[in-house]
Each structure stands twice: as C-alpha cells, then as structure tokens.
C-alpha cells in the first residue's frame, strides 16, 4: 500500500480518527455536547474527504475499490449521518445519562457503511456489513428503559444474525465453486463453474439473495421492518432507512454487476418474483397502517422492490444501470431524510415509541397551520416518494420506468404502476391530515415538543434538495453518467 492509496482511503481514515477522539474524550470528560460537537466536525471533515478522495480514486488492495460511485454514496451516507446527529441533539434530551456512547456507535456504523459501499471483495463486504449492523443493534436499543426499542433491537439482532449466517454460507458455497472471493474473480469464473456444478452456484445465489433480501427488507424477508422502524428512536429509524439500506443496496448492485449475476435466468426469475411481491405487499400493507413510522417502513419495502427493476433490467440497459439505480437511491435517501427529519421534530419521542398515542397521525393534524415549513417539507418528501413531478422521486421513477421499457419488463412495470397508484392513497392521507383545519383533538394532545429554529432550517434545506434534484436534475445526471 502506498501513500496515494492512503489518500484514497481518506474518508475512512477521518471517520476512524473521529472514533478515536470520541473514545479519548470519554476517558477525559464525559459530556454529550462535546461528543456531539466532535462527531459533527468529524462527519463534516469526512464529507470533505470524500470530495478530496475523488482525485485519487483507485483500487486499494484487493478489498476496497475507491471510485466515484462509492464516494458519492459515502458522501450521501455521511450527510444522512449528519442529519441523524442534528436530530439526536434534541431527541435524547432527557433520556438516559450515557448519551455520548450513541455518537460513538453512530460513527462506527458509518465506517461500516462506507467500507460496505466501497468493498470489492466478499471479506470486506461482510466486515463492513457486520460493523454497521452490530453498532446499529445498540443504537436501536438506545433509550434503554423503553421496552419497544429493546424488543425491536432483539428482533433485529436475531434476524440479522441469521441473515448474515446465510450470507456467509452463500459466500462459502461461491468460494467452493469458484475459488474466488473478489467480485470480479467470481464474475470471471462463475459461468464455467455453473456448467460443471450448477447445484453449488444455485445454492449460493439462493443464500445470498435471502441474506440481502433480509437487509433490504424485501418480501418475503420483510417481517422485521415495521417493528424495528417503529420501536427505534426516530433518528435511528432515519439512519436505518437511509444509511443501512442505501449502503447494502449499493454493495448488492456492485456484487450483482461485477460478478455478472444477470446471466442466471433462475436468479432473475427469483428477483422478479421478489420485486413484484415487494411492490404489491409493501404498498398494500402500508395502506393499513396508522403509525407513520410503520407506514414508511412498508413503503420502503416497496421502494426497494422498484429499485430491483433496474437490476433485473441491467443486461438490456447496460451502462445506464448504475445511473438509474444511483438516481433513484439518492432520491429515496434524500426524501426519506426529509420525511424522518420532520417526524423526529414534530412527533414527541414518547408518542411514537410507547403505545399511549399509537397513531402518530394525531400529532400531525393541522401541522400546516402550526409549523408550515415542517409540514411543507413532509408533504414534498411524501410526494417525492410517491413520484410526483418536480420532486426528486419523479426523475428516479422516470429512470426506472425507462429501464423497464428498455428490457421490456411489462409485468414488473404493471406492478410498479399498481403499486404507485396504491401508494398515493396513503401518502395523501398524511398530507390530508396535516391540512386539517378543525383541530378539535388538540386539547387531549400531549404538549408539542419544543421548537428550535435549527429544525426549520434543516427541514428547509432538505425540502430544497428534494425539489432541486427534481426540477433541475441535469447537473446530477451529468455527474452520474460520468461515473
């Protein structure tokens, strides 16, 4: 490894140094505010480092491949982490007395995600995924006296561990068949291995699909999602929905493209079935939800179903696959950030977590007239998730439909149209409840959480990013096609 390679790894190095600083700080003076500050500064420097590392993009050892694609999503993930950190400042106000550990865990999880995104080898993939996951279990359980979050954490821990085990078995089978662990190596040898020993490859692919399916909460591996989304503190839900899922999807698409998974018709068929099931089940179950966090969990299931269309179409679409997937994923991440940022701000943590006002929708009633910026941000975020023009989500959907048309996947497109039509209903229901003018129920509501100017700034910035990506996408498209 030479010094240029170290420069390429700059984001990871910055993040690691921040973790060390946090640990040192904990031993000198325990203070949540200082930890908050260190984390924030560390993340911002890491964000800068992502831009800096673009000049040194290269393969770093066999494990990690630093390229524009990976750096883009590392940057997005770091931005998501920044939002989590900003929101955590107020949402952990009175709970627990060991808050600074939260930031340490968050940084570890971000490192895991960045490594996961940039990995080009099954070993680093697994390492990154586990580092990200293990830190996340603790983050979910963080309000430690709350039963719901404990339940969520244990559920996530158990299912995640078994998914990792399956993934590991899949990797082992792949290794047995090909003798390779790097993505490109597998891609080169898997086709011949498939002819000599198809059972091994089929088994491996099935295991890998199940493992990733769990992490991305695709139907039928989605059971954990609503409980974990609901039980976790809202900033952590945001982190899970954007960082964890985004990183895993990037890793999966890299593996999928570089190891040329598209050549196995059986896998494509399985993926198509999973995609259709995710789009329909996710959207249908979202219809039944009253709690907005549960609702968004089901909608995220559907969104990853939409995203799979791009991978299924990848052979016909060719080089546009990464552009299409990246745009949709970026749009999804930004819109989800905006949505959860508003939820974390306007719904008191106790409300959305423990059962006493389980709807969460109550707290949103009449939000337009109480906190217009927050309501506007949530509306635009939901419209973007629904794929209405002028928002980021529309251009994402545009790409996906285009990919589907190029590959003539009419059945999948049909599921997408039906799914989107259903989704409009539940997104609109939230917007409708925010626009209600007769807030007679407000008398029984718990006192609204304290308002901070910074919250409106954050919501405003996210709102503008969603609109900018949707109404002026040309610069981003040019950047993506350059990848």
């Amino acid at each position, binding site marked *: 490894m030479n010094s240029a390679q170290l420069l390429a790894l700059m984001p990871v190095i910055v993040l690691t140094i921040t973790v060390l600083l946090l640990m040192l700080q904990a031993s000198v003076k325990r203070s949540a505010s200082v930890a908050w500050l260190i984390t924030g500064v560390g993340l911002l420097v890491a964000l800068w480092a992502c831009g800096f590392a673009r000049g040194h993009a290269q393969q770093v050892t066999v494990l990690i491949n630093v390229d524009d694609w990976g750096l883009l999503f590392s940057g997005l993930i770091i931005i998501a982490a920044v939002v989590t950190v900003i929101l955590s400042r107020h949402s952990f106000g009175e709970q627990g007395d060991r808050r600074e550990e939260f930031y340490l865990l968050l940084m570890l999880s971000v490192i895991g995600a960045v490594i996961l995104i940039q990995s080009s080898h099954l070993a680093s993939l697994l390492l990154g995924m586990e580092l990200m996951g293990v830190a996340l279990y603790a983050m979910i359980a963080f309000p430690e006296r709350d039963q719901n979050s404990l339940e969520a954490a244990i559920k996530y821990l158990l299912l995640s561990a078994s998914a990792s085990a399956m993934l590991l078995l899949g990797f082992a089978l792949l290794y047995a068949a090909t003798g390779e662990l790097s993505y490109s190596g597998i891609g080169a040898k898997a086709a011949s291995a498939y002819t000599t020993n198809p059972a091994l490859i089929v088994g491996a692919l099935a295991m890998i699909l199940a493992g990733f399916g769990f992490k991305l909460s695709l139907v039928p591996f989605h059971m954990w999602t609503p409980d974990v989304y609901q039980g976790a503190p809202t900033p952590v839900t945001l982190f899970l929905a954007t960082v964890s899922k985004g990183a895993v999807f990037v890793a999966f698409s890299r593996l999928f493209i570089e190891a040329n998974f598209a050549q196995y018709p059986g896998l494509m068929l399985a993926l198509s079935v999973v995609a259709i099931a995710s789009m329909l089940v996710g959207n249908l179950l979202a219809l039944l939800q009253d709690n907005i966090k549960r609702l968004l969990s089901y909608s995220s299931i559907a969104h990853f179903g939409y995203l799979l269309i791009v991978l299924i179409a990848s052979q016909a679409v060719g080089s546009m696959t990464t552009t299409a997937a990246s745009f949709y994923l970026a749009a999804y991440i930004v819109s989800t950030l905006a949505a959860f940022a508003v939820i974390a701000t306007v719904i008191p943590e106790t409300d959305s977590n423990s059962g006493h006002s389980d709807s969460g929708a109550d707290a949103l009633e009449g939000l337009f007239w109480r906190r217009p910026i927050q309501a506007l941000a949530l509306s635009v975020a939901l419209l973007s998730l629904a794929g209405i*023009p002028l928002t980021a989500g529309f251009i994402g959907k545009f790409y996906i439909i285009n990919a589907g*048309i190029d590959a003539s996947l009419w059945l999948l*497109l049909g599921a997408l*149209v039906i799914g989107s*039509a259903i989704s*409009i*209903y539940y997104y*609109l229901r939230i917007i409708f409840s925010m*626009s209600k003018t007769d807030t007679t129920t407000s008398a029984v509501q718990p006192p609204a959480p304290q308002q901070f100017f910074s919250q409106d700034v954050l919501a405003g910035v996210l709102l503008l990013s969603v609109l900018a990506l949707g109404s002026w996408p040309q610069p981003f*498209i040019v950047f993506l096609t350059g990848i």
Partner: protein
Amino acid sequence: MLMLHIIVILLVGGLLAMASQKIHQNAPRWIALTVVFVDLFYFAGQLWSMGDLNLWQAQLPTEPGTWLMHYSSPWIPAFGINIELAMDGLSLLMVLLTLVLGAVAISASWTDIKIHRGFFEANLLWTLAGVLGVFLAMDLLLFFLFWEVMLIPMYFMIAIWGHEGRAYAAMKFFIFTQASGLLMLVSILTLASIHHSTSGQWSFSYFDLLGTAMEEQTAHWLMLGFFIAFVVKLPAFPFHTWLPDAHTQAPTAGSVILAGILLKTGAYGLIRFTLPLFPEASHAFASTAIWLGAFGVIYGAVLAFGQTDFKRLVAYSSVSHMGFVLLGVYAWNALALQGAVMQMVAHGFSTAALFMIAGALQERLHTRDMRKMGGLWQQMPRMGAVAMFFIVASLGLPGLGNFVAEFLILLGLFQADRAMTALAALGLITGAAYSLLLMQRSFHGSVQQHAGLLDFGPREMLTMSVMMLALIVLGVYPQPVLNIAAPVIDGLLVFSASDAVVALEVTP
C-alpha cells in the same frame, strides 16, 4: 416568452396572494382578481399587438413554424427534455377560456371562504397556472409535469375548503387522475424510447415524436395509455365515478374550475395528442370510443335525472355533455371536431355558471338538497332568471352556444355512424328532462320557509352577465370561434390522413 410569462405571473401572483393575508383578511381575493385580469389583459394585449396572427392558415401539427407562437429552451438536455411551449388556435381558445373562468371562479368564492383565504387564492391561481401549462406545453414530459402538478393545488382546494365528504372526494379525484396519469407516463416513455431506438436521439418534443413509426400492436397499447388518462379527466363512462364526488364536495370556485376548465384538459389531450400521435390506432379504436361517448351521454343524463343534490345533478350532466365531446372527437370529421371544440367552450361557461348558482344557494340555504328548495324564484327573482337562462342553455336551446356545439357534433357524427347519432340525439331529450326538473324543483313549486334570502348582488350579476353574453355570442355568431379552430382541425385531418396513406403503403 409570452406563454412563459402568463404562467409565471399566475405562480408569483399566488405567492403574493398568500403573503397578503397578513395585511388584511380581504386582500388575497383582490390580489388574485387583479392578477388574473393582469394576466388576461397582458395576454390579449400582446396578441393584439402582434397584429397579423396568421389565423387563417392551416396549422400543421408537424410544423411549429406555422403555429401562432413557439418557444423552446433546454431543461434536461441529458434526455432531450425541453421547456417547449407552443400555441395554435385550439390552445388560444383554451387559454382565453381558462383566464376568463379563472376570474369567474374568484368571483364565485368571493364570500364563502372563511379560513386561510390567502392559501385558498394561491391554490386557485396555481391551478390556473398548471392548466395553462397543460394547454401550452409541447414537450410531452413537460406536459405530463403540468398534468400531474396542477392536481396538487386542486387537491388542497377540495381537501381543505370542501364540504362534508371532502376527504373521500379529494382522495378519489387524486387517485383516479394519478393512476391514469402513470399509464400515460409509461406510454410517453415507451414512445420516446421507440423514437430513441430509431433516430438515436432522446426527444420528448411533440413535433419530433409525431409520425414515429411503430408496430400496430404497440401503437394500440400506447394509444390506450393516453386515451385512458384523457377520458378519466374528461370524464367518460366508465371512468367518471370520481367526478360527481369531487364536484359536489369542492368549494364553489373549485367546482367552477373543475367543470369549466379541468375537464377540458382531457378533451384537449385527445385532440392534441391521442389522435395525431396514433392516427391508425385511433381510427381502429374510433367505433369503441363513439360507443363509449354515446353511452356516456345517455347514462349521465339518466343518472342526473335521479339526483336530489343540486350540485350532483349538474355534475352528472357534465358526464352527459362530455360524452358529446368524445363523440365529436372520434367522429373524425371537420364538422364534428368543430362541434367538440365549441362544446368545450360553451359547456365551460354554462356549467361554471350553474355551479356558481349552486354555490350561491348553498351559501344562503346551507343545503344542496333540492327537496328543501322550491319556490325560490319568488324570493330571489334575479337568481331565478339567471338560473333559467343557464339551464336552457345547458339543455341546448337554439340561439345559445351549447346548441351550436351539439348540433355540429350530431351533424358530423351522422356522416360517421347513424345508429350512434340516433342514440346520442336521445341525450338531448333526456337532457331537457333533467334540466327542467332542476329548474322546477328548486325555483318553482310551492314556497318553502326560507326567510330573508338575499338575491344576487351586483358582483354576482356582473359575473353572470359576462357568461350570458359569451353564450349568446357563441350561439348567434359562432363563426369567430369556428374560424380560430378551423386551421387546427384542418391541419389535424390533413396530417392524420396523409399519415394513414403512408402507413398503408408501407404495410404490404
């Protein structure tokens, strides 16, 4: 640039109206009215100053140079998406109708909006801006954008200021139009993708995509994607079920805009996009569409006859009248198409006026139920007389615009399909039945106990007289409107005929 300006003026005006609420409760409506008038006079003035409008020359769909105006600037070059606006006679008529009815709508809701007035007027102006965009956009993706985005302010108008069942109605309205819009999006993208594969270039421009060669089967499916999106908006049987709910529950201004303008976007889409983009597929489909139209005429009329809710009755009568538009479009000759355009304009005025009367009644009586009305003429003679005028206009009394429209459509349809003409002509009789029933139940009959009802004041009479004048002019001297629409229709017929000939030569 003129076309861009009139859209932007409305968008900015909406923001102004919203902000002005802080100054005074009544400021938003004055600002909104001013903005619409500024827009209208600016547009008319610019048209006037252009002088030689070239109105009489055939405007070929393929030749943007022959259109009245054309503007294009890049938006997303990566996919060849442009901000491309163009105007021909058809768009010109629709823009004028939109702006005039926009002013009517503001007047219609002058007093009945009690909360969040600034936001209300803003949504109204934004809806108008979206509709103008629909009538002017010639880039298919830009068109789709306006098509979808104009729904959002309309949704808010129904959802916030609507009547008792507003949540259900607003949701149904939005989902129907969105879901059908998605089908259109898939069609648009497929069309562009076919164009891309043959020409190697991404383009969503109407002028580029016209005449794209494709297989018969593909054309059929793509045509259906567009057709469904447009007939949901029109609405035609069996996609009309959102309409009675949305119209009934919307606030008065919302109903005026919905019935007067928004429905016309569906008819406009059929004439502008479905027919020229897929001439052969549309030809093959014409008999089905005519059947749907004729059935819609009768079905809407029968359902209207059974209503007790004033607004619901008018809403179902729209289904019936819009069936005539569908007939006119698919009869596929100059007479019927002229009739369809005329119907779009005339129905815009007559229904807007009827909804305004319904709104005025609701404001005074707090009910739309006709069983609780009766004998209102004696208490409100001015309103009664006005209602009489628009009801006979709506049933197609000769001398008023609606008669000219329906007569032309039936005349044109007679050349295409005699059986369906006979069926549709029945709609005129049923139309007379429900219209007179409406009049009789609400304004004649025994006097119910309604004390101290206010008759129409100067504001309402002024608004109504503008629409009366429009209908009389359309009925007595329709030639200017026919002249403006003629080049467009001639161009369309010439284009689709030539294209069919070319296709016939290619297929064997």
